[in-house]
């Protein structure tokens, strides 16, 4: 099967921030010795290099759909990356310390695109809930409660300097990075110029930060944006990222199933898995 290898290798070494890097021992496929390699985790791609300053990766492990487990090994601090497909290879690795092992296991088990998507969906939902609660107009609450909401938020560490006037609602538009304008956000467009050409760069498609980022002195314009975005139904329809696909064969609710709807539950499982691994390791000492 072909892969755009040159560009994938470029992704490994380009200046996009890695999620984790470090030395690990990796068991060879045919040569069963463990080889020390420099690993770079970016998103759901685990690259490995012969040396830390090597210009090109030796290889990459696509982590989508994998599980990470402790494994029985003469090697200390060993763990394995496994896949749920026929004749899948098991990647045996070993870290250089207990802490490193735990840290890698945690990072790798959460590296999937699906996991990231779940987290984003969950936060999106939370934000909508918060904004729904704050939008006085929609739920018949008096305007003052919205101002209270805003006032309360000021006590938290906030990067934007909010004006003290309660009539100025510098609460955000609900516009997250999107590929294109949506009807509910037309009010925001007057303030934020979305690109008129249709070229969008992956990873930099979010071309204009919403007003909330850098705008400390929002006034009427922000208010308009706020009003325009208080229709959660419409917004949701315009913005909701696609639902993660259900894996065939995986049960609906399981630690590894991206079909698991309840984010907290899924997260609990992840947390518990790590705890269990930890206990196992400690007991084996």
């Amino acid at each position, binding site marked *: *099967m*072909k*892969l*755009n*290898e*040159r*560009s*994938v290798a470029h992704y490994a070494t380009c200046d996009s*921030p*890695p999620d*984790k890097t470090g030395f690990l021992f990796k068991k060879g496929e045919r040569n069963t010795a463990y080889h020390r390699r420099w690993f770079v985790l*970016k*998103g*759901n*791609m685990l690259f490995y290099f012969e040396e830390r300053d090597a210009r*090109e990766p*030796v*290889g*990459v492990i*696509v982590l989508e*759909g994998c599980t990470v487990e402790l494994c029985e090994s003469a090697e200390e601090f060993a763990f394995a990356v496994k*896949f749920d497909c*026929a*004749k*899948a290879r098991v990647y045996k690795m070993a870290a250089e310390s207990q802490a490193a092992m735990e840290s890698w296991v945690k*990072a790798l088990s959460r590296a999937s*695109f699906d996991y*990231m998507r779940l*987290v*984003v969906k969950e*936060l*999106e939902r*939370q*934000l909508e809930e918060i*904004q729904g609660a704050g939008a006085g107009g929609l739920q018949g609450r008096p305007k003052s409660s919205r101002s209270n*909401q805003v006032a*309360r*938020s000021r006590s*938290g*560490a906030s990067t934007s300097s909010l004006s003290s006037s309660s009539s100025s609602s510098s609460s*955000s538009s609900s516009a997250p*990075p999107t*590929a294109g304008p949506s009807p509910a956000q037309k009010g925001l467009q007057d303030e934020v110029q979305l690109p008129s050409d*249709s*070229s*969008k760069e*992956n*990873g930099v*498609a*979010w071309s*204009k930060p919403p007003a909330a*980022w*850098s*705008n400390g002195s929002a006034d009427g314009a922000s208010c308009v944006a706020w009003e325009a975005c208080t229709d959660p139904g419409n917004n949701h329809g315009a913005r909701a990222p*696609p639902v993660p*696909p259900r*894996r*065939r064969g995986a049960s609906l609710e399981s630690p590894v199933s991206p079909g698991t709807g309840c984010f*907290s539950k899924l*997260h609990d499982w992840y947390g518990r898995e790590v705890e269990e691994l930890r206990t196992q390791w400690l007991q084996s000492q």
Partner: protein
Amino acid sequence: MRFNEKEMVSLSRQPSEMAAELGMRGPKKGDVVKKRLVKLVVNFLFYFRTDEEEPIGALLLEQCRVEREDTQVFSIVFLDEAERKYLFECNSEEQCGEWVDSIIKASYEFMRKNLIFYRTEIHRLTGKDPLEQYGISDETRFQVNNGLQLMPRDTSSL
């Protein structure tokens, strides 16, 4: 560069966001348009010969740019070799727009930016970090200042 091909083939068989028969042209001079089943799964674009089970190939959709070339045609270029364009011919203007949108959203980097946006917003509105309850607030990839370049806002009008 080695990669776990078996696992990728298995991934290509997962239910996908978008799958359709499109005309696909490779980036090399002399490449012609061929009918392919194109399938978007997480941040990969797989392409198959129609009715074949194993994909011919996959494109990792990170560090790339999607552009609308025509009413029904879009292209993908990778930032490290921007002269090489992969072209995709759709069956309608609407379909073309859907693909462009979906591919833009199909990168890990794009999701990361979304997440940081939501996290910051929620924190701003509530004073609480929404990631804290999940114990992932310290992870490098969720940090605002994790080497990401926030686009500066044009403040010349202020």
